[in-house]
């Protein structure tokens, strides 16, 4: 069974760079699976592998792509601030602007829009979490409609962020950023679904 799962995983590219296990390791793996997960869990494992192996294409201008991109900007901004010396930080700033094919002034705007959007999302995340905690404390299951509403607000904030970016940077800068986000950046994002251990 474990061998079967192993092969399934390889078929789907899930273990793309993993080396083959020795027969002993495989037997040990089978033993552990049987001991702790029993047959039902193994079926669940198979389902999990199949689910995670499924990779769906992300459409252009998907709000989640902007979320990832804004997060990347925030990480870069932190590194610019943390760089040793002003010249090192300025070098990273220039390099990032060049990498995204935008002017340094547009790159600065991108940083501000990213921080602002992510700040709003962080506040929303706390609000959503507080709501769920409140419901659970009251012995209630969170209302699916309200959870969906939180998600919609999250997506709306992301769309606002993208729109704000478009309005704030130069037309040339927006053209370069939109092209980068939808082509080079989006092409290297993969989404997967969660697994339940049963």
């Amino acid at each position: 069974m474990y061998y079967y799962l192993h092969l399934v995983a390889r078929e789907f590219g899930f273990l793309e760079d993993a080396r083959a296990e020795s027969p002993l390791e495989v037997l040990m793996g089978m033993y552990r699976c049987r001991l702790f997960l029993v047959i039902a869990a193994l079926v669940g494992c198979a389902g999990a592998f199949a689910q995670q192996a499924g990779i769906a294409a992300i459409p252009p201008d998907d709000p989640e792509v902007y979320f990832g991109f804004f997060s990347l900007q925030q990480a870069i901004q932190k590194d610019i601030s943390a760089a040793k010396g002003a010249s090192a930080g300025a070098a990273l700033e220039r390099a990032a602007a060049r990498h995204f094919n935008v002017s340094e002034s547009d790159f600065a705007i991108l940083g501000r829009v990213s921080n602002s959007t992510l700040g709003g999302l962080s506040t929303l995340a706390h609000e959503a979490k507080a709501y769920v905690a409140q419901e659970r404390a009251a012995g209630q299951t969170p209302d699916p409609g309200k959870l969906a509403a939180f998600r919609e607000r999250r997506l709306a904030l992301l769309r606002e962020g993208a729109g704000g970016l478009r309005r704030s940077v130069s037309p040339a800068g927006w053209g370069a950023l939109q092209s980068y986000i939808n082509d080079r950046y989006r092409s290297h994002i993969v989404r997967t679904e969660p697994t339940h251990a049963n």
Partner: protein
Amino acid sequence: MPIETRRVRRIVVRALLACSQASLALLVCPVVGRGQCSDVVMYSGRPDPIRVDSNHVYAYGETWVSGDVYGYWTPYDEAWQYFMPPGQDGGNAITGGTVGSADPGGTATAGWTTNLNEQGPGTYWDYSGHWADADQDACPGWYFDEVYYNGPGLTISRPTITGEQGIWYLGTAPYNDNCLTDHVCYYNSTELMLIPDPGDPGPTDESPASWDLTFGGLSPFAEYLYDNVAGSEVNVIATSYPSACIPVSVTASIGGFATAPYSVWVDYPGHTALVLTNDLGVVGPPAGYISQNTLQLISFCGETMFTVAVHEQFPASPVACSGSKGWTDPIPQADWAGWITNGEGEFVDGIAVVCPAALGCNPASTIPGPRQNPPVALSAQAEARVAQFIYVGSQNIVPLGEYFPAAPNEQATYLDHGRDQPGTWTCQ
């Protein structure tokens, strides 16, 4: 530990954790609905590496969770730096994994920065693992298993140097006189340009390139001057001649990322070699000869010195050879000649002697033996000799000494012809 084994262990651990926590959670508080817990998606991003500056590349992986209950998921990202040298297939991790995490609702990032000069040219990319753990109180049993991806690669080359690799030491001359009229010239300097890798911003006025010359253990015989503030171009100048035929090894670096060594040869006039003769007769009276000696100018390192201005000098008076029949001073001390060597480094040195007995030549000069009737062999007995210096860099005879002499040869006069003999030749 193999990645598969680690993954199986993680599944096992999570399953145990989920079972225990789910049991506890069901007793204590309600969980988020199972349908809601599954309504999340994990995003795994591996953006392009960024060339931070000439000598550094920086890359990130990202993980985040979106969906109805994203606030209950803690994302993780694990990053390894992978490197593949040029001409090889595959690649290897050159760092251990570094793990980043973020609060629920945030984005986990993990990355690395590498020093290109230390690692060298090749392709760099981020190999990343992505996973997320659910708050087991809220979503017992749910997890995202770790998935691994190769990020896009960035191929890096070292900066390179271009420019003429040969320069000539011609004494005090910055260039040979022929450079005034001919674009094919010999200079005592060469302009070198530093070409950065296409992704490299290159040197700037604030962060100029640095250059270095080494001389293979010899005393320095060249130096360089910046042509611009950023140091993207320099002028390498020969300041003397090398004592051995060894190139100057030139390297340049931008922000610490160095070029491969680039050889510049400092060469200088070595000697002349006789490659062709043609002896013509002057019937007279008085009779004599015009001998055409084709000489080839060879550099110290064995290269032909083409299209360069040269002239001859005879600083000493000729002397009679021991077997001479009486020639004492037949070579004139004026009308020394100058030339521009041809594409093969050659020029024709004419030796004309018309010297009757009345002018001190006893016996008198004759037309070349093979041109006499009946023909006879050329005379084997040299009458006189003088050291002939070929000065390279100018055709000017006045002032003397422009600019650098090849090793002298021996110009010999015979009864019926003249020859530019090697410097090692001696007359008897």
